[in-house]
């Protein structure tokens, strides 16, 4: 059996309050379900652990929701179960997402003691009015303390999530956010363009005309300004929305972008392993119910044939600034990129959206802005 290194994702769907832009499986007022959810989760980890115990785990990512809204002891039991069911590597990256409004000083020490070595803070914006508008429960002052406490507790790998393109956000406000986040000396920054998803409070506001989405021109300006600002501060852009200091790229997210394998636990969690992608029920109750009844919480699964896999590798790989590695592609599919995509590649190069060097194909800055358009050209050759 081949040696495989995979990732584990664990979803904690509880929040103190749901943000207006969030379309993720996360629920407020569902605290009653916390304990049954924990047991369902532990069952799922144990059951799948038996099946996939032979793989090495290089990353565990606890996302949400707000995982730090879950009891720390519950997080501990989850990790213990992972350690006992899987072969988690010594130096594995173990991340937890958290909301600065849910963290006391003590929590950081406890999390660190559980083996967690990477912290991802949802900061979003520096202006308290914008935070309030977004439905965030924290202030930027709490962000400052959280980072300080985390450092004191020994966290050497801290990410912050920030957003641009928030309705009514000004370019100045965005630059202030970047400036302050950089001065916190964090290791990794995810700078996302806010997407107004259907079935969110924000979407209805836009539909009702209460809120106007930002114009694309300003939004792109923020993006491009952000990239050059962060570069000056020593954060290297390595993915469309991600920036890292030397050696601090996210091991876990690279699994997705390199189209590698992972197992997700919990409601709404996605998995991809041995050519199968599947995801669990999003609803907490339904997840717990099917977990108890059937021993799995799966809502959907699909088989990924090599045609699809080829496209997915490109779709994900072109999110990376370094692009898709030619040798890696050929190793996986037995034939070089050119064999499948020569026409698409030359057309995209002609149009200034894509470039290549000896080792890879990658998007130009213009290509990064309209990645979907580029992918459609590849999709035409999916066969």
């Amino acid at each position, binding site marked *: 059996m081949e040696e495989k290194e995979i990732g584990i*994702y664990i*979803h904690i769907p509880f929040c103190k309050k749901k943000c207006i832009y969030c379309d*993720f499986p996360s629920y407020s007022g569902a605290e009653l379900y916390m304990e049954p959810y924990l047991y369902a989760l532990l069952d799922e980890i144990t059951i799948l652990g038996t099946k996939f115990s032979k793989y090495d785990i290089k990353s565990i990512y606890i*996302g949400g929701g707000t995982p730090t809204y879950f009891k720390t002891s519950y997080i501990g039991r989850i990790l213990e179960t992972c350690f006992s069911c899987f072969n988690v590597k010594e130096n594995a990256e173990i991340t937890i997402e958290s909301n600065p409004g849910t963290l006391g000083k003590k929590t950081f020490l406890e999390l660190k003691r559980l083996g967690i070595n990477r912290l991802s803070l949802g900061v979003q914006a520096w202006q308290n009015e914008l935070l309030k508008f977004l439905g965030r429960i924290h202030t930027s002052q709490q962000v400052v303390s959280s980072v300080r406490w985390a450092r004191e507790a020994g966290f050497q790998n801290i990410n912050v999530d920030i957003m641009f393109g928030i309705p009514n956000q000004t370019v100045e406000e965005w630059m202030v956010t970047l400036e302050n986040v950089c001065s916190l000396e964090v290791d990794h920054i995810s700078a*996302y*363009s*806010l*997407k107004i998803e259907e079935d969110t409070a924000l979407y209805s506001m836009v539909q009702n005309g209460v809120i106007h989405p930002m114009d*694309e*021109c300003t*939004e*792109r300006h923020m993006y491009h300004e952000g990239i050059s600002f962060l570069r000056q501060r020593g954060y290297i852009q390595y993915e*469309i*929305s991600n920036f890292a200091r030397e050696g601090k790229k996210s091991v876990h997210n690279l699994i*997705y972008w390199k*189209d590698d394998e*992972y197992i*997700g636990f919990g409601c*709404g*969690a*996605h*998995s*991809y392993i041995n050519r199968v*992608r599947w*995801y669990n029920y999003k609803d907490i109750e339904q997840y717990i119910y099917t977990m108890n009844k059937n021993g799995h919480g799966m809502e959907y699964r*699909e088989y990924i044939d090599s045609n*699809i896999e080829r*496209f*997915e590798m490109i*779709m*994900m790989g072109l*999110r990376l600034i370094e692009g898709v590695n030619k040798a890696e592609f050929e190793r996986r599919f037995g034939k070089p990129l050119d064999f499948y995509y020569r026409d698409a590649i030359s057309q995209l190069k002609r*149009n200034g*959206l894509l470039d290549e060097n000896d080792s890879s194909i990658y998007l130009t800055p213009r290509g*990064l*802005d*309209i*990645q*979907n*358009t580029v*992918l*459609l050209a590849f*999709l*035409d050759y999916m066969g």
Partner: protein
Amino acid sequence: MPSSRQERIRNFCIIAHIDHGKSTLADRLLEETGVIKQREMEEQVLDSMDLEKERGITIKAKAAKLIYERDGQEYVLNLIDTPGHVDFSYEVSRSLAACEGAILVVDASQGIQAQTLANVYLALEHDLEIIPVINKIDLPGAQPDVVKKEIEEIIGLDADNAPLISAKEGIGIDKVLDCIIDCIPPPKGDESAPLKALIFDSFYDSYRGVICHIRVVEGTLKVGDMIRMMATGKEFEVTDVGVFMPELHPVDELKAGDVGFVAASIKNVRDARVGDTITHVDRPTKEALPGYRQAVPMVFCGIYPADGSEYDELRDALEKLQINDASLIFEPETSAALGFGYRCGFLGLLHMEIVQERLEREYDLDIVTTAPSVVYRVKKTDGQMVEISNPVDMPPEVEIEYIEEPIVEAQIITPSDYVGPVMELCQERRGNYRHMEYLDEVRVVITYDLPLNEIVYDFFDALKSRTRGFASLDYEMKGYQVSELVKLDILLNGEVVDALSTIVHKDKAYARGRAIAEKLKEVIPRQQFEIPIQAAIGNKIIARETVKALRKDVLAKCYGGDISRKRKLLEKQKEGKKRMRQIGSVEVPQEAFMAVLKIN
């Protein structure tokens, strides 16, 4: 003198404006005479095409034989349904020619409308006895006395004894039947003379071939007879004769005065044209019945399969439609923008819309239609006169001496409050005022000569919107007239898109060019590159718009490994792209071609 058999026959039709209740009255007559029972009756039996039911109009004429008993006498009442739209006025005239009388249905609240009037004039031309009937008297807005007066003053018919009815509620139907028997003269015609039968409609039946709806004017027709179509000269052996019950019901023979059908293994409706005269091969009549003419298409457009691979399906569908529609013509054409398709000719706009809709609904085809064009006559500098029905074929400006365009005489009936807006509209559409006549204190008929080219776009919609739906329109072809016309081209990314070219009046070219460019800017999605849209006359650019390049088309985040979702979004986007036309490097959605039609 009518024979005693003929004494008990009445052949009649119903004329009415759309929605005035023609089909409902027909249904009631069928019901009252027991042809169909109420419970087995689907609403409006005679209008059997879906489209007809939806639009409340009759596209193809139909017929039904009603048996009505009065005072111990059995009468045969042949109801001939007529199409109610101006595009089909020739068909209407043939149906009228098969009757001795007509019931004129007028809505008690709306009064006489343009089409009513047009059809009444047609009926009077055929010397029909006209029985006015005032319908919808049950409605709150009914003003039967006002409408009676209108009928008397406008049409000059005595409406004193006009039955007041409600077809919907079944009120007064017996009075209508009495009037039919008492007022409409029975048919005449020598049963032993050489055969003379008028084809007033035909349709294709996959078992029996073409079924001709006929009115026997003279002579007798039986199964086994050898017949000849006098206009086409085609000869056939009769396999069936019968009457409409309203389904086809075989009989031994049809005699002078009868209405019925004949089938003779005829393969195509083209061989049994509406208006043609049927006679016997071995004992032919000397003279055909008057009034036959070949349908002349007035409006043309290109029809293309949205998916190029459906070209053969489109041809099959057009051929099938043509079997039943002698006035539809088509021939292959190629467009640089749209690929392979067909240039199709229609009697008018409604006919065009009907064909388009039937292709989509009945044949499940996805089609792209180009802007409709009329037939222009172009006098070239070399003295040649050419007819142009596709803007693409327009010779270069330097080779043109002059261009003539078709002109129609349009009659618009409108409440007097809207005279201003109507005249303004006609003026905008290059109309030539003829005259105006007050039908009564509140209604006016306005007559204009209008270029057909101005009517084919959205004249009817504009008329309706400017008169809050009250005005009605009728038009007929008048002739050709020299006009200052130019070919307006549209360029995308510097390339002329043939399917978007139109012919317009010089004075309107600028405004129209601008409007089309603006509209296209709305419907063409942003793409990788900036796309210039230009309108041009010859080499001269008269309008320009730009579709800006796409600035952003990327997902910021791939949430928690949800990769299937992203892939599926892209696959959906790709499906959407498939429905676009690639013109040079520009992707053009199908609506773009339709958008050109909707510009005022």
